[in-house]
């Protein structure tokens, strides 16, 4: 409980940081004026129309990716579980590219395509990765995910290379970023993330028992098939919505559940709420770093999360047993 309070404190600090820091250096008075008495000046617009939406976008995307990672890791009993590594991102990316070819112009129109892609790949990787019955073997699942992700990314890239206009339009999106993501895309995606998080929480108990093995879980009264189906739906909603808003953002889904486990231990009922709080902190801090590191220009948040997440991952795996579930 104390840990969760500290995490919420960190989240509030990160939100404040995200609103305060940017390529326009604004004083506290200007910020306060913008937030409380919006009057349409340039500084007001910078704060309310640019920084607030991207902060909210980071909150939504973070919650989505963090919880999706936790559910994937629990469902597959695989410490490497991540929407990116298992190809769910890549599936959403491919279908978004198809959508762009069919005329989808803005991230809000990417949404349905991202869902279809995320769902197809989640099911495909899970079916290929599992031996039909029983939980999938982590190595096989990772192999399936890496293979599927590579194939889909290859097809996406071929499509964008054959069509330079699409290439240019997807270039900013495919790096993963919160630039120009307004409430017009965040609000339609938000309900899906909320439903996804609720489904994940609903699955937390059964996922805990399934961590003991499928046989023991059934004998404890867990409906394994139902849990798997709901988990897959949750992963689809969370990853699809997050990817549609921000593009593929790597490593948040991988690293955040590890951080949560490190704080609260292996209980999914606690890991998932922690992920909802911690993942946005990670994303917001990464986004702020991306804004200041090459000031006044920006580095996309997906690039920063890779630079932040990869060392964390390497550190985790170098610790004796931290990465095992």
């Amino acid at each position: 409980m104390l840990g969760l309070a500290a995490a919420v404190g960190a989240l509030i600090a990160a939100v404040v940081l995200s609103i305060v820091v940017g390529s326009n250096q604004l004083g506290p008075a200007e910020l306060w004026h913008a937030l409380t008495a919006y009057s349409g000046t340039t500084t007001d617009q910078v704060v309310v129309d640019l920084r607030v939406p991207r902060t909210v976008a980071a909150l939504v995307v973070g919650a989505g990716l963090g919880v999706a990672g936790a559910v994937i890791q629990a469902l597959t009993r695989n410490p490497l579980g991540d929407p990116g590594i298992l190809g769910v991102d890549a599936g959403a990316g491919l279908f978004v590219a198809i959508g762009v070819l069919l005329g989808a112009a803005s991230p809000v129109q990417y949404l349905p395509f991202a869902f279809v892609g995320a769902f197809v790949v989640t099911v495909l990787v899970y079916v290929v990765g599992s031996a039909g019955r029983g939980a999938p073997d982590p190595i096989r699942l990772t192999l399936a995910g890496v293979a599927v992700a590579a194939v889909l990314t290859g097809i996406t890239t071929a499509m964008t290379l054959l069509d330079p206009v699409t290439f240019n339009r997807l270039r900013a999106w495919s790096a993963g970023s919160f630039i120009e993501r307004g409430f017009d895309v965040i609000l339609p995606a938000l309900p899906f993330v909320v439903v996804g998080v609720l489904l994940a929480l609903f699955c937390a108990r059964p996922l805990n028992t399934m961590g003991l093995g499928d046989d023991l879980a059934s004998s404890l009264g867990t409906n394994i098939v139902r849990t798997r189906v709901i988990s897959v739906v949750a992963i689809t909603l969370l990853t699809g919505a997050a990817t549609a808003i921000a593009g593929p953002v790597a490593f948040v889904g991988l690293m955040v559940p590890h951080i949560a486990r490190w704080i609260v231990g292996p209980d999914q009922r606690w890991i998932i709420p922690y992920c909802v709080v911690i993942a946005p902190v990670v994303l917001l801090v990464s986004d702020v770093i991306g804004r200041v590191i090459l000031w006044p220009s920006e580095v996309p948040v997906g690039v920063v999360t890779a630079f932040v997440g990869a060392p964390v991952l390497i550190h985790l795996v170098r610790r004796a047993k931290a990465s095992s579930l």
Partner: protein
Amino acid sequence: MSRVDFGSRTAVLRRGPFSIRFRMRTALIGAALALATVVVAVLALCLGDLPLSPVDVVSALLGSQEGLAHLVVFEWRLPRVLSAVVFGAALGVSGAIFQSLTRNPLASPDVIGLSAGSYAGGLIMIIVFGVGAGSVPVAGGAIIGGLLAAAAVYVLAYRNGMHGFRLIVVGIGVSAMLEALGVYLILRAKLEVAMVASVWALGSLNPVGWAQFVPAVVVVAVVFVALGTLVGPMRQLELGDDAARSLGSRVEPARLWLVVCAVALTAVVTGAAGPIAFISLAAPQIAKRITRTAGIALVPSALVGALVLTASDIVAQFALPDNLPVGLVTVVVGGGYLVWLLIHEVRRRR
């Protein structure tokens, strides 16, 4: 003296003090793969804007100076086809070494960060220093990047010995960082430079001529010769470090040299043609399945790599409206094969 049962039919060749024992199945499949590679290579020499008949190609190869065929075959198509064969073999062997050393099918240069290092090194040359894709500085950058990435992954993953799982995770982490660097570089570049860099970054044989092929093939040949002396220790290392030591191998030097050879192979190919994805991951696994060897065999891996890359390059050039980078085809072919393999194994297990 009783005969040892090796579990499969074997043949032994003896000449003076030397003898070599090989499995019949491996030898037959190796011969079939080599034949298929030659056929596909000749087909690749026939195809193009100026179609040639196989007879023209073969007579040009045998030294006929007649007509355009000689020019087309030797100046335009041969460097590309030969590099597909040699680079495919090099990638297959590079992957086989890593998979053998780590006893893990995932631990190919693609996954453990080596390709990403070469990619980043080459990309820095193209975007930051503005040199053309496929040139010698790009190759140099790719080799330096590959070696640095390999060293970084090794150092970061080494903790009271090497562990396959840790190696893969560290490799994924390092790859992700380097790929993020690549995305960032491409994003900052002008659109034209970004397109050129993106095509190189996917692995393409388009820019490969004799000037790129000759230095690369010299390095590959040297490494292959060096590997001849390392095959014995490699087989013993597959039994585990303790067993290898008790059989007389010097474990750490052997492993280090094997890694250096594998890094050199991947980096040379990346420098000349960009990171051609997935051959080094898929070729050893395909070879292992069709030859049904217990471990990862180098020669079949090389042959499968050569065949797959040569065939993929034909598909990349001629199957689609535009001339695509071959790396995209190898990704789809190699990745698709792995997916099929996984499904197939599931069916058989039931």
